[in-house]
């Protein structure tokens, strides 16, 4: 419109000096100017139509380019730029945030590993985002009733050459299956005896270091993956680093194959080595613990009814060799479990477990658990578990435990 007004002004201004000219000249010029006005009007109309079309067209889902260039001090009347403002653009780059609550209750007795009647066992806060075109970061902060623990916090390099995927930070080690799982994705309320006795308890091998994983060449339709990890060497009561060089090592080889569209098998062998605390009182770091593991998982999930039925059968075997000043403690433990989903919201499962103790391998605990789980929705879960344990000293643990889990915020990936 401004262009038309300008043009009209120009016309009025330019018409005046030509009054003395001949009538034909004036008419010709007016016609030319009218034609130009017409052309400009047509141009404006086409621009308006294009704008309307663009507004009507579906908005692109491409992430908006957020220009976060900080303004120079004084650029806006001497005011400092405001960081952390709650604009939509600022929030767009926030990490995905999730919170998972884990409430536990218990009835019965366990003379060896007693638990309270009620506990807010864990509140896990997850912060996850892509860092840059080369890496992503994942943080999982575990809030207990009395403190906070960095359960995992690592950077994953996703764009390395040769198909390598590397992680650096604090992470759960790739030893077997159950060690890699967070509490909220376990199919039970607790962890099996073999984890508690031989693989570092609830936190397991969870340490600071780096990890490299690669898919390895294998015959067609077989997935083979190798993982090598180096850690500082501090994992609860399992590994203890007295010096910088006392790092611990973990290796895992995984083979997987789809047997049919609905059924698959997953096999793994693991190795872990680190210094233990046996020589700490003697001022020595000469004693090591080595762990060897094997795991087998068979899964069945009919694809047409995958939200209603599934089965997971799993066994893990762990051998421990713990060097001590007077002897080597050789211990063995295992668990075997089966979980069946019999409805969209219902799961039933059982677990048998047995394990020697790492420091007194002649003592063996064994037990079993049965589990019933109900999902009100994908984001909450109610579980009851009966657990019986016969400890090596002859005492029995008989407990009925129940659990409420609930998830807020960003939708996480389903575990496999």
């Amino acid at each position, binding site marked *: 419109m401004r262009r038309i007004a300008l043009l009209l002004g120009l016309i009025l201004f330019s018409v005046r000096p030509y009054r003395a000219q001949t009538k034909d000249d004036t008419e010709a010029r007016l016609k030319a100017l009218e034609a130009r006005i017409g052309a400009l009007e047509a141009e404006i109309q086409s621009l308006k139509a294009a704008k309307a079309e663009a507004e009507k067209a579906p908005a692109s889902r491409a992430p908006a380019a957020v220009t976060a260039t900080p303004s120079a001090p004084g650029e806006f009347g001497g005011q400092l730029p405001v960081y952390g403002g709650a604009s939509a653009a600022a929030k767009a780059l926030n990490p995905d945030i999730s919170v998972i609550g884990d409430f536990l209750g218990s009835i019965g007795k366990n003379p060896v590993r007693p638990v309270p009647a009620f506990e807010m066992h864990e509140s896990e806060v997850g912060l996850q985002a892509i860092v840059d075109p080369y890496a992503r970061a994942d943080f999982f902060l575990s809030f207990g009733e009395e403190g906070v623990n960095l359960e995992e916090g690592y950077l994953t390099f996703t764009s390395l050459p040769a*198909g390598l995927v590397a992680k650096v930070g604090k992470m759960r080690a790739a030893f077997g299956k159950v060690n890699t799982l967070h509490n909220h994705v376990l199919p039970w309320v607790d962890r099996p005896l073999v984890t508690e006795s031989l693989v570092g308890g609830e936190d397991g091998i969870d340490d600071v270091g780096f990890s490299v994983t690669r898919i390895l060449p294998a015959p067609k339709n077989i997935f083979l*993956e190798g993982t090598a990890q180096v850690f500082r060497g501090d994992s609860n009561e399992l590994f203890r680093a007295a010096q910088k060089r006392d790092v611990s090592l973990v290796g895992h080889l995984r083979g997987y194959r789809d047997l049919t569209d609905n059924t698959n098998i997953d096999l793994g062998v693991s190795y872990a080595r680190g210094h233990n605390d046996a020589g700490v009182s003697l001022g020595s770091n000469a004693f090591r613990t080595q762990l060897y593991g094997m795991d087998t998982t068979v899964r069945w999930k009919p694809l047409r009814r995958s*939200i209603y039925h599934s089965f997971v059968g799993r066994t893990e075997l762990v051998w421990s060799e713990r060097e001590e000043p007077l002897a080597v403690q050789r211990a063995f433990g295992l668990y075997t479990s089966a979980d069946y989903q019999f409805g969209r919201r219902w799961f039933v499962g059982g677990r048998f477990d047995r394990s020697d103790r790492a420091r007194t391998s002649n003592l063996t605990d064994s037990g079993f658990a049965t589990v019933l789980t109900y999902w009100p929705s994908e984001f909450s879960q109610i579980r009851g578990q009966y657990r019986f344990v016969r400890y090596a000293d002859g005492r029995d643990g008989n407990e009925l435990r129940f659990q409420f889990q609930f998830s807020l915020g960003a939708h996480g990936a389903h575990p496999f």
Partner: protein
Amino acid sequence: MTQKASSFRSASSVLVSGLAIALLLPGFAQAASKLKVVTATTDMAALASEVGGDRIEVESIARGYQDPHFVEAKPSFLLKLRKADLLILVGLQLEIGWLPPLITQSGNPRIQVGASGYLDASEFAEILEKPTGVVTRAMGDVHPLGNPHYWLDPENGRRIARGIASKMAELRPGDASYFSQRFEAFSERLAIAGKAWDDAMKPLHGRMVVTYHRSWPNFVRRFGLQVVGYVEPRPGIPPSPGHTIELIQMMKREKLKVIIVEPYFDLKTPNSIAEQTGGKVIVLLPSVGGEKEVTDYFKLFDYDIALLTRAFKETE
């Protein structure tokens, strides 16, 4: 001996020259190999196949009869993803429960989020049911970016195919005109088929249906149906007795007969509703490959429209 040495030298020089030419002309090697495309769902694979023709190899992760929200992140999918030049996903958080860890673990820089081989098809489509107010999980498993079942409008199919053709041309400039011609041919065939589908559905304009899940907003808008109830009380929440009774009462009141169910949902509740209302349950396919004979994007609409028109005829 001299002859042998000479022929060896000439053979070597031919080989070296050949290798040098191959190395100096990266486009040569590139053109010779097919573009490896992996898609999250069979529908994206079908559209990619329409425009990619024999210059691409395409594989889908999810099967057409599988609930695309709940695919397992199997390691065997990593074998496909690690070699992919292009990954096409539906987006709008449809695959949020399984695709992100697969992408991270693939060790393939080409298909990482934001890389040239990562294509979110929702960029090109018209998206419906974008929540405008506060979004909470009290609404069920809502998709805060809009309904992800957008490929069920042929116009969106055309838009997606155009976007895929453009991306393939970017990755294989030597085949750009091939992809463009294939897209034009697809678009023409879609226009002809679309007219036939519209004609078949015309008598059903304004008819009301009940569906199990919110999978059909783009489909019903295109073909003039109205969804007036859902078997799920809220997206992702299984049917409850209270909601089912309300739905039966509403269907009786409004004289609704057709209940649309996706192939991965249990038929027990829909069948029970149909029994009490004198209605009919039809398993409509939201995806290519939902049944053996539905092998491409055109057959998906052929199948669904034939099923729908028959169902309305039978319940009149």
